[in-house]
């Protein structure tokens, strides 16, 4: 309960301790439920306030579960040159994050990589930021 109150205060000040986000992640996902999911992309929703990646994950018993992964605002990705085609259906990805508190098959995208280990959304240029690679 005490934690919930603290979370609410953070939400009201619209600033969290380490991350700016549209809402309280701490109220949505459970830090005691870390997940590592390997599977294939079935859909990417380029929607605000947060993008969501849907993926099929094969369970040890052979069944398949569809998970939803929460990501950042798509606006910034668009500015970095990513498009709807950047993460095609069927892409094999690995997601590390934390599962939703209500135990549904949703998680945050704490770390997102392709099956070969490269980052999903890195390597773009053109934002003008000092971390950018040169455009030419």
């Amino acid at each position, binding site marked *: 309960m005490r934690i919930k109150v603290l*979370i609410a205060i953070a939400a009201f000040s619209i600033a969290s301790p380490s991350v700016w986000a549209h809402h309280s992640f701490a109220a949505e996902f459970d830090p005691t439920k870390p997940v590592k999911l390997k599977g294939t992309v079935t859909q990417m929703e380029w929607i605000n306030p947060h993008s969501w990646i849907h993926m099929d994950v094969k369970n040890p018993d052979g069944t398949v579960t569809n998970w939803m992964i929460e990501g950042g605002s798509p606006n910034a990705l668009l500015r970095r040159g990513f498009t709807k085609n950047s993460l095609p259906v069927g892409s094999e990805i690995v997601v590390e994050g934390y599962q939703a508190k209500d135990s549904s098959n949703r998680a945050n995208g704490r770390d997102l990589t392709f099956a070969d280990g490269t980052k999903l959304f890195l390597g773009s240029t053109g934002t003008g930021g000092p971390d950018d690679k040169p455009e030419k």
Partner: protein
Amino acid sequence: MNPRSPICRMLSAAAALFAFAPVSAFAQAVPAAAKVATATPARARTADGQPNLEGVWSTASVTPLERPKDLGAKEFFTKEEAEAYEKKTLAVHEVAAPGTYGDVHYSMAQFGLEKGQSQVAASIRTSLIVGPEGRIPPMIPEAQQRNAARAAANKGHEFDGPENRSLGEQCIMWPNEGPPIQPAGYNSNLQIVQGPGYVAILQEMIHDVRVIPTDGSPHLAANIRQWFGDSRGHWEGDTLVVDTTNFTGRTAFRGSSENLHVVERFTRQADDRILYQFTVEDPATWTKSWSGEMPMTKIDGPIFEYACHEGNYGMRNNLSGARAEEKAAQAAGK
């Protein structure tokens, strides 16, 4: 040469909202310069002769709204200090131990929301708030009580329903939108469009347009209250001055009452730079008025739509998470 000073870096914490990092073009940094030089070059005119503020602008900044207390009355950095401050600020990266609440979020860097991934105008200011204090003045006792009562009323009910969540989570308004305009945590961009008798400001976060008449028309009747207040503009030389009243008490900018009164000044200082200044007053909240300023730097557009409730699964998930916790607590209590 491209004088835009790229920077960016999502700040952390409370800083996220009101802090960012300036950058390279320190030589361009403009000191306090309130009522600044209004020497708008002849090029900067709209077809009907208004000073031209049009374009897409970044309001990102590494300068905090309030001056860190250890800086005392120091209002400006030297160029060297500003560079060191920038470097230090940019060195801040997400650090959170696995399994802690701080670690529970999407990857800021991978989604282009990290520091260093957007553009920020240079500034040598130590705080957006000007003057020797550099901080929001104290609240009067009545305002402290009003805000405490509001917080107390919601205590224990934070996740009862959407209406208990912050205005931002409800997609009603974000504090960066203003007035007064503040740097947003990310997508800190706005577009200004002018037409005869009007100036319109579109804020990317969170997709609101403030249409400001400049035709001399009076404010709305006092009984009409709006989330963003009622803005009326006029030109003082080449500076756009915008006067805003008629706020709702629920807007509560930094704990303000419905008597909040904001005066903003927009001055085009260069092709790529607007100086934005604001004064906030509310005798029902603060012991005195306070003022701040920040540069806006021109960026390539366009503004992207941020349809805040389009896929706001987060709201549902927050509430369902709270219900799950309540059930678990109930079960544990049996």
